[in-house]
């Protein structure tokens, strides 16, 4: 435990001092993006790494956050109050939708859940595409002029994002180490057993979904503000879900640090390779490399979290565990 704390402390100090070594806005934005997407990946890790749920629709909460803040500001005008309202709307909407999707689909096999969440996200994507009057469809819209100046300053927003990351990380740290969090891990390790111990699996999975969904929507809000623009493809497209997958798996599932690491790797690599793309077009397809890396990791490093996700195929529950008194 203390090692981890030292690690985070080092990170925070590095984060605070980093702007001293950066001299251009683009790089500042890059790190801002890394922090924001790290939060998105962490929220995904709550599902995948801690509870053992695979969702392919996580981007829909991201999009909900992004559109909440951009629409609120655009139609309500520039004001801090509007931002707060947007945050509340995003939280409520994502909680409600997590709940609905969860209630309908969490009971089903994991393969069904994965496909259904994919379909839901696609529905949101299509909705945002077609509802042109609201979202301006594929082209999206820029809402820069409605953003308070404080947030438009790149350096300010860098620090705000860093603080955002730290606060959420702390919150999630407390969450996964709470009693609820431990039940989630128990479910991930052996769902059948957790059930025979008397835990209402669906209830806990729903909590996990809602927490993950809400945090994702918050990261969506931050993302939209940093880019000052929303478009269907960027906030509701499957690319973000893929990103979450890559960041979490490559960075390391089931650890809060992993997603941050993953976010750093993916985003920095993306920048570097995008520059290289001017040299040779093959670098445009950097995703292939990451895809292969991702597949290799899933296949060969199922240690810890993944290894214990293996459900034994030949089990016969011959013994029933009695409910233990401390639950």
């Amino acid at each position, binding site marked *: 435990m203390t090692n981890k704390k030292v690690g985070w402390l080092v990170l925070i100090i590095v984060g605070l001092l980093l702007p001293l070594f950066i001299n251009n806005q683009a790089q500042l934005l890059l790190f801002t993006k890394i922090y924001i997407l790290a939060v998105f990946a962490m929220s995904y890790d709550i599902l995948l790494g801690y509870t053992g749920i695979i969702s392919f629709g996580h981007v829909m909460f991201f999009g909900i956050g992004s559109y909440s803040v951009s629409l609120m500001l655009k139609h309500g005008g520039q004001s801090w109050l509007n931002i707060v309202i947007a945050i509340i709307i995003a939280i409520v909407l994502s909680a409600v939708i997590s709940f609905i999707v969860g209630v309908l689909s969490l009971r089903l096999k994991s*393969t*069904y859940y994965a496909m259904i969440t994919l*379909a839901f996200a696609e*529905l949101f994507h299509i909705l945002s595409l077609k509802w042109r009057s609201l979202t301006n469809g594929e082209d999206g819209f820029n809402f820069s002029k409605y953003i308070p100046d404080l947030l438009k300053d790149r350096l300010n927003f860098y620090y705000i994002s860093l603080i955002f990351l730290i606060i959420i990380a702390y919150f999630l740290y407390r969450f996964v180490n709470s009693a609820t969090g431990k039940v989630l891990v128990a479910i991930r390790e052996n769902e059948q057993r957790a059930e025979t111990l008397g835990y209402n699996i669906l209830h806990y999975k729903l909590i996990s979904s809602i927490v993950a969904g809400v945090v994702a929507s918050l990261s969506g809000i931050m993302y939209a503000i940093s880019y000052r623009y929303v478009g269907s493809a960027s906030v509701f497209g499957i690319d973000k879900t893929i990103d979450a997958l890559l960041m979490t798996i490559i960075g390391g599932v089931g650890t809060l640090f992993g997603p941050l690491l993953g976010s750093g790797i993916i985003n920095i690599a993306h920048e570097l390779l995008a520059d290289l793309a001017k040299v040779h077009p093959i670098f445009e*397809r950097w995703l292939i490399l990451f*895809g292969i890396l991702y597949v290799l990791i899933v296949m060969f490093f199922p240690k810890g979290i993944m290894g214990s996700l*293996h*459900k034994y195929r030949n089990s016969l529950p011959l013994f029933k565990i009695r409910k233990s008194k401390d639950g």
Partner: protein
Amino acid sequence: MELIIILTLNGVATGMLIFLIAAGLSLIFGLMDVLNFAHGALSMWGAYFGIWIYKGLEQFWLHQNPNLLEASWYPWLSMLNFIIGIVAGIFIGSILGLLMEKLLIQPVYGNHIQQILITMGAMLILAEMVKLFWGSNLISAPVPALLDGAWEIGNIVLIKYRITIIAIGLAILTFLLWILHKTKIGLIVRAGVQNKEMVQALGINVKKVFTLVFMLGAGLAALGGVLMAPFMNQVYPTMGLEKQLLAFIVVVIGGMGSVFGSAVAGVIVGITEAFMLYYVPDAALAVNFLLMALILLLRPSGLFGERG
């Protein structure tokens, strides 16, 4: 009335195409308990590769003899090129299926989480590789001359290509049902969908059949893809995921492991889409999605599901 007939026929044609993709997915899911998240990519590769070969051959012949276009037998040559394209598409699909099964599915067999994640990774890689070879923009896919155009019966316009698709779909369906019900290996597949363990206990190595079924499913998906291309007049890099979503809906509605179910559900979904696209286009996917949700709530094993 004519409109209804036209829409229905369009729907059945779409349905047959989705059936081709869904049939493999359903069998693989039913028999191996594997939901291949890269199945749509196999279909897309079939489409891209098949059309590439087809157009390549067309260009080749025209290059040799620019006057070919006027020859009366040119449409037949074109048809031959198209058939070669189809075969090429099926071939690439099957090969990719074989590689996928051996390299990605077998190593993680039994672990659902790994398998879902890995096949999704494969989908990503395959989709990106399409862009690598053919670019990110859509590519046109023409209908071969012989199948172009329509027949007119009274007020009803029957588009030749769509009728062809329906015919091919029905032929494949018949062929598949024949294999399943009249051959030993089909018997093994049907039994395996119902109770894998017992098949093993009867001395049959079901895992060998897995690879065959996976390849068959991949080949069918690729066939669906290459036939779908002229239907949509194009191929584009996101068609894999799109069609896979529809295929999944069909598998759920039709019932996991049932080829016949995939056909029936395919037609239902196809017709629904045809009508919705005409009347309320924005809601097309949503309606089919709702159908699936309904089945999941009321009869989770699907219309013809062989498993509970």
